[in-house]
């Protein structure tokens, strides 16, 4: 039964709890990224000044970078700089890290969002058909999703390129970046070429960008898609056994309508939280695929940063990943709380 008086304060409490959780997670991530990067061998000041610099010069750079300050002070500066979007300058080439990441983030975001769309749509369609039809189809879906989960991403990417890409059948472009070279990128609004192309009324740009996206997005979508397929199949199988499905059928509702309206709906809710994590992992986990497809995203920046022991770049990337994860997770929780009546804040 409803208890209207308690629901508001309970919701506030829940919101406050969630916020505290987010802050704690971020703080922990920042400490870990800070400590780990300080703990690995290699002196960034030496990297900047080069092997031939005099100790005086080296000491000057160290002071300038704040590397002589006590660790806790360094950590505070690091937090402050991150929060104010001053992510420092690359130790290796002096570029403004914030600017580099800002320039490359849209490419990664666009790739991740499309991969997410492919993964979710694919998973919903396959899982629903498999659990509705059952039999051989369910078996095939199970095997395919198992194989999908076990297949290395870069291998899939390479096979796709060799079979469908420009070096194979040539059905789709790639690996050749985000657009065919003779096309101008659309006017910058969101930084996502497909979206901006549509906004600017340039269908050619849209379709070309989508064609370039297709192979990397599919490679990226495969593992999370297989994961979501398995999750959704299992959830639907559970829900389909619930007594309320029999009750829905007893009203005269057809099996397909009952499955669509009730089984799928109930099975999707617990998958939403996982979908948030999948999106975050797609954004931060595209490094390999970006390399294979020569995709100008942040993955490539990260690879270079690691190779050159570039603290500023790696640090910014690690903390940004943490923020993205937490944001995706919180957003997913919020969506679940909005759409699941059992968690929804009662306004009555």
């Amino acid at each position, binding site marked *: *039964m*409803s208890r209207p008086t308690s629901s508001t304060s309970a919701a506030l409490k829940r919101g406050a709890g969630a916020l505290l959780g987010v802050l704690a997670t971020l703080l922990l991530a920042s400490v870990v990224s800070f400590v780990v990067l300080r703990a690995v061998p290699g002196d960034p000041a030496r990297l900047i000044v080069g092997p031939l610099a005099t100790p005086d010069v080296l000491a000057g750079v160290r002071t300038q970078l704040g590397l002589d300050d006590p660790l806790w002070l360094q950590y505070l500066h690091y937090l402050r700089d991150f929060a104010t979007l001053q992510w420092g300058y690359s130790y290796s080439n002096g570029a403004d890290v914030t600017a580099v990441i800002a320039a490359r983030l849209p490419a990664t975001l666009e790739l991740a969002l499309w991969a997410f769309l492919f993964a979710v749509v694919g998973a919903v369609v396959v899982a629903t058909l498999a659990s509705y039809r*059952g039999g051989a189809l369910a078996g095939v879906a199970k095997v395919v999703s198992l194989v999908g989960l076990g297949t290395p991403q870069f291998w899939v990417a390479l096979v796709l390129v060799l079979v469908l890409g420009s070096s194979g059948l040539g059905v789709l472009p790639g690996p050749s970046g985000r657009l065919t070279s003779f096309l101008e990128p659309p006017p910058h609004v969101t930084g996502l070429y497909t979206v901006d192309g549509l906004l600017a009324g340039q269908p050619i740009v849209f379709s070309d960008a989508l064609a370039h996206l297709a192979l990397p997005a599919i490679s990226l979508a495969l593992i999370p898609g297989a994961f979501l397929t398995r999750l959704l199949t299992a959830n639907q199988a559970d829900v389909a056994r*619930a*007594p*309320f499905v*029999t*009750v*829905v*059928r*007893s*009203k*005269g*509702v*057809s*099996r397909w309508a009952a499955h669509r*309206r*009730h089984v799928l*709906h*109930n099975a999707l*809710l617990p998958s939403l939280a996982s979908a948030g994590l999948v999106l975050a992992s797609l954004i931060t986990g595209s490094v390999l695929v970006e390399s294979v497809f020569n995709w100008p995203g942040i993955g490539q920046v990260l690879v270079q940063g690691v190779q050159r022991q570039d603290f500023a770049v790696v640090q910014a990337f690690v903390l940004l990943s943490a923020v993205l994860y937490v944001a995706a997770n919180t957003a997913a929780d919020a969506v679940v709380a909005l759409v*699941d*009546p*059992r968690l929804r804040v*009662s306004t*009555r």
Partner: protein
Amino acid sequence: MSAAPSPALPALSVEGLRVAYGDVEVVRGVDLVVRPGEKVGVVGESGCGKSTVALALMGLLAAGGSVTGGAVTVSGSRVDYHDERALDRMRGSQLSLVFQDPLTSLDPVKSIGSQIAEALRRHSPRMSRAAVRARCAELLTAVGVPEPERRLRQYPHEFSGGMRQRALIAVAVANDPAVLIADEPTTALDVTTQAQVVDLLDSLVDGLGVAVVLVTHDIGLVSEFCDRVLVMYAGRVVEEVPSDVLFGGAAHPYTRALLESLPVPGRPRGEDLAWIPGAPPPLSALPPGCSFAPRCAWAQPECSVGTPPRVVVSEPSVAALGTALHTAECRRALEVPRG
């Protein structure tokens, strides 16, 4: 209320119903006739096939189960269990179901209103939104849920167990069905709530003329609520008896043994209850002859040979208009001391 069918025409008639899961026959020839406005109980212990009968009649057997024989007629028209579309049209409009556990019988993420409306829209697709709403509120009122307008917007978790069962009954009677099949409708409820729900079912029978098939393990409940009781054992109806003579005059040794195991009020305390030795046979390996013979205190050698005959224990009295036939599927039905 739909046009009253002629009293001669049964609301539900089942002849020789057989149901199998794979190779195992779990319902082995069940006959059942229910007249409009009549309340018939089906009792038995777990595994006797009573819930399978309920689901089979609805055409909603779990995967692997199928109706392998028999004829079912609802309001005079024969049901074809292979025609899914015809079944969908019949379910909810002519035959409807109230299910065991009210906690799991409602979709947790849909409002109560939408779940009642679903039943209405399915069978009256041209009903306007406003008409559906009004009818939903009317139904909730009819099943004794206060403040129907507010309650329609609520979700199952905001309803107590008794209120959920009332909502499910509203769903079941939404399209004025001829027969309501209630499978253990009060088992999950507290006894005071159970009393309220039984009272509600009673008033619906009076008001709507709907026939009720009450499937339960609770002999006390059927004997109080129902006009007639069918006792099931190992997939067969072993006795069909008018409720008012059940306690005094049951004829089948299994029914008698069940009744003697009940701690009924008034039985002297300290007197030990009787129980039935052994366990029901697995349906995959039934003994020859009468299935109850191996546990029966009255069994004779010939009970293990051939199908036991259906014995008429008492002819219906003239006043009862043919509803009160008392039969038992037992060779010795007339020898077992009764009363």
